[in-house]
C-alpha cells in the first residue's frame, strides 16, 4: 500500500496528482473464501479488516450489493459518544471510543476524528437529576463526564435561547468531552483501503440472495454474480437484516424504520460541539464545511424506503428553532434518509446463529456509526473463534428469550416512539 503522508502528498503534487494508486482493487469473486462478510458498510468493512489483522484470515471477501459508502455508513450524522447507563453498553461503546483515538494512524487514513464534546441539555430539574444519575453510572464505569449548570452552558452555546421567553428553558446539561464526530465516508474508505491492503477482496455490485446449507452447516452463498463457497459468513447488512434472515428461516426481534437527517446552507463557525435538545428529539453539530447537521426522530412507521416525509423534518426543525432561534434564518440544503435496523430493545445483536457458520451483526438502530470499530473487532472475534467476545456477550440474540434486555431508553418494543 502506498503510504499516505505529507511527503507522498508533496511528491504527488509535483506530478499533478496523476500517480496515486487506486484506493482498493476491484477483483472478480473467487470460487471460495475462508470467510465472507455480507454488506460493505462500516461494520462489514471493519469486521473484515480485524479478521485479517488479528485473526490471521487472509482469504476473505466483502460482498456489497451497491457501492462502498452507499448505505448508512455515509448517511449518518457522525456522532460518537458513550454516554450510556447500562454497564454492557457503557463498556462496549467506550471501548469503541478508545479505538477512535488511534484509528487514523491504524488505517493510515484521516478519519477526521474530532473529540469536540457532546452536550445533552436538560430543561427541568427532574431531567437534570436523571442526567446526574446517568453521569454517575458513567463515572463508575470510568468514563469522563460532567454535569454542568445553566451559566456554563451559556458560555458554550450563547446563541441558544436563554431569554425568559424560552419555551423550554435550559437548566444545565451533561457533557461528555471525548464525544464528538468523525468523517463518515472517510471511515468507510479508510477501512476499505486498509482491508484491501491486507488481501480482503471487496466486491461491489454483488448482492447475496440466498445461502447453501447442508445438515445445519453453511457451505456457501448465492449471489447475483454466482455461487461462492465458504464455511463462514457474517451478516452486516444493517436495515436489510430481516430480509436475509428470512432466507435462513429466521425471524428477528427487529423492525426496519427510516431515519432522516438534514443540513443547512454552510455558515461561518457557530457551534463547535454536538448539542442535543432535551425537550424533544433534536440534535445538531456543524460540519467542517460549515453546514449545520441536524437530526431527530424516526419517521415512525415501518419503512424500507431510504427516504422519509416532510412532517418529521418540520417537527425536528421546529424543535431546533425553539433551541437555537437563529437557525430560523438558514435555508435547508438537503435532507435524506437511511433504513434503520431497530431492535426490540434498542441495543445491537452480535452473535452466532442456529446454523453453523452463520453469524449475525445487526440491530444498531440509529447509533451504529460510533460503534464501527468495536463492532468490527468483537464480530471478527465471534466469527474467528465461534464464540462471542467478552464485550459483546450481553448482545447475544437469546436475551430476548431469557429476559436480559438492554433497554437503555425504557421504550419497550415500540421503537418508533422516540
Amino acid at each position, binding site marked *: 500500500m502506498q503510504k499516505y503522508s505529507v511527503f507522498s502528498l508533496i511528491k504527488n503534487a509535483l506530478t499533478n496528482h496523476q500517480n496515486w494508486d487506486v484506493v482498493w482493487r476491484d477483483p472478480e469473486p473467487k470460487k471460495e473464501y475462508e470467510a465472507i462478510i455480507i454488506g460493505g458498510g462500516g461494520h462489514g468493512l471493519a469486521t473484515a479488516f480485524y479478521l485479517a489483522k488479528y485473526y490471521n484470515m487472509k482469504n476473505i471477501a466483502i460482498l456489497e450489493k451497491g457501492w462502498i459508502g452507499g448505505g448508512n455508513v455515509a448517511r449518518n450524522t457522525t456522532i460518537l459518544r458513550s454516554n450510556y447507563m447500562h454497564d454492557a453498553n457503557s463498556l462496549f461503546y467506550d471501548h469503541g471510543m478508545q479505538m477512535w483515538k488511534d484509528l487514523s494512524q491504524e488505517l493510515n487514513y484521516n478519519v477526521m476524528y474530532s473529540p469536540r464534546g457532546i452536550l445533552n441539555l436538560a430543561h427541568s430539574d427532574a431531567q437534570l437529576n436523571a442526567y446526574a444519575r446517568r453521569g454517575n453510572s458513567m463515572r463508575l464505569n470510568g468514563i469522563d463526564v460532567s454535569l454542568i449548570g445553566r451559566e456554563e452552558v451559556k458560555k458554550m452555546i450563547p446563541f441558544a435561547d436563554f431569554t425568559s421567553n424560552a419555551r423550554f428553558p435550559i437548566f444545565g446539561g451533561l457533557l461528555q468531552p471525548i464525544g464528538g464526530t468523525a468523517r463518515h465516508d472517510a471511515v468507510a474508505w479508510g477501512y476499505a483501503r486498509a482491508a484491501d491492503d491486507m488481501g480482503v477482496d471487496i466486491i461491489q455490485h454483488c448482492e447475496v440472495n440466498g445461502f447453501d446449507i447442508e445438515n445445519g452447516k453453511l457451505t456457501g452463498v448465492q449471489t447475483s454474480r454466482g455461487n461462492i463457497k465458504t464455511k463462514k459468513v457474517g451478516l452486516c447488512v444493517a436495515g436489510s437484516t430481516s430480509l436475509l434472515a428470512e432466507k435462513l428461516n429466521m425471524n428477528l426481534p427487529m423492525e426496519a424504520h427510516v431515519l432522516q437527517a438534514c443540513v443547512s446552507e454552510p455558515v461561518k463557525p457557530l457551534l463547535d460541539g454536538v448539542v442535543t435538545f432535551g425537550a424533544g428529539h433534536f440534535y445538531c453539530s456543524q460540519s467542517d464545511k460549515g453546514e449545520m447537521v441536524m437530526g431527530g426522530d424516526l419517521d415512525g412507521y415501518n419503512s424500507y424506503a431510504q427516504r422519509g*416525509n416532510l412532517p418529521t423534518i418540520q417537527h425536528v426543525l421546529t424543535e431546533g428553532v425553539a433551541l437555537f432561534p437563529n437557525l430560523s434564518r438558514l435555508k435547508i440544503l438537503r435532507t435524506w434518509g437511511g433504513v434503520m435496523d431497530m431492535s426490540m430493545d434498542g441495543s445491537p445483536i452480535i452473535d452466532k446463529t442456529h446454523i453453523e457458520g452463520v453469524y449475525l451483526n445487526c440491530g444498531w438502530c440509529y447509533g451504529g456509526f460510533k460503534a464501527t470499530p468495536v463492532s468490527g473487532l468483537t464480530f471478527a472475534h465471534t466469527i474467528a473463534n465461534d464464540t462471542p467476545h467478552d464485550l459483546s456477550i450481553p448482545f447475544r440474540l437469546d436475551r430476548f428469550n431469557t429476559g436480559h434486555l438492554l433497554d437503555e431508553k425504557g421504550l419497550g418494543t415500540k421503537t418508533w416512539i422516540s
Partner: protein
Amino acid sequence: MKKALEQKLGLVDMLEIKCPYCGDRSQNEFSYGGDATVKRPELNSEVNDLEWDSFVYYRDNPRGKHLELWHHISGCRQWFKVHRNTATHEIIQTLEMQEDL
C-alpha cells in the same frame, strides 16, 4: 389516479391516510400502532415461552406489503388497519378493525 401514481413514485411530501370514518386526512393527524398481524396468545390457554416471545418481540418485518395499525389521534380517535407498502410508502387500502384483507 394521479395521486396514487404520485404516491407510488414517492413524489408526495407526506402520507395521506384515508381514515375509514373521516376520509382522507394528512399524516400529521395520525399516530402509528405497529404490525397488525401480531396476535396475542389466547387468554386462559397454555402459552409456552416461545409463543410469548414471538408475540412480544419477533416481527416478520417485510419489505413490501405490510398490514399495520394506525390511530386517528387528532381526529375521531378510532384505531384502524392500513395496508401499506413499506418500500414505496404507497397506501393500498384502509380497513376497520374487524375487517380482514
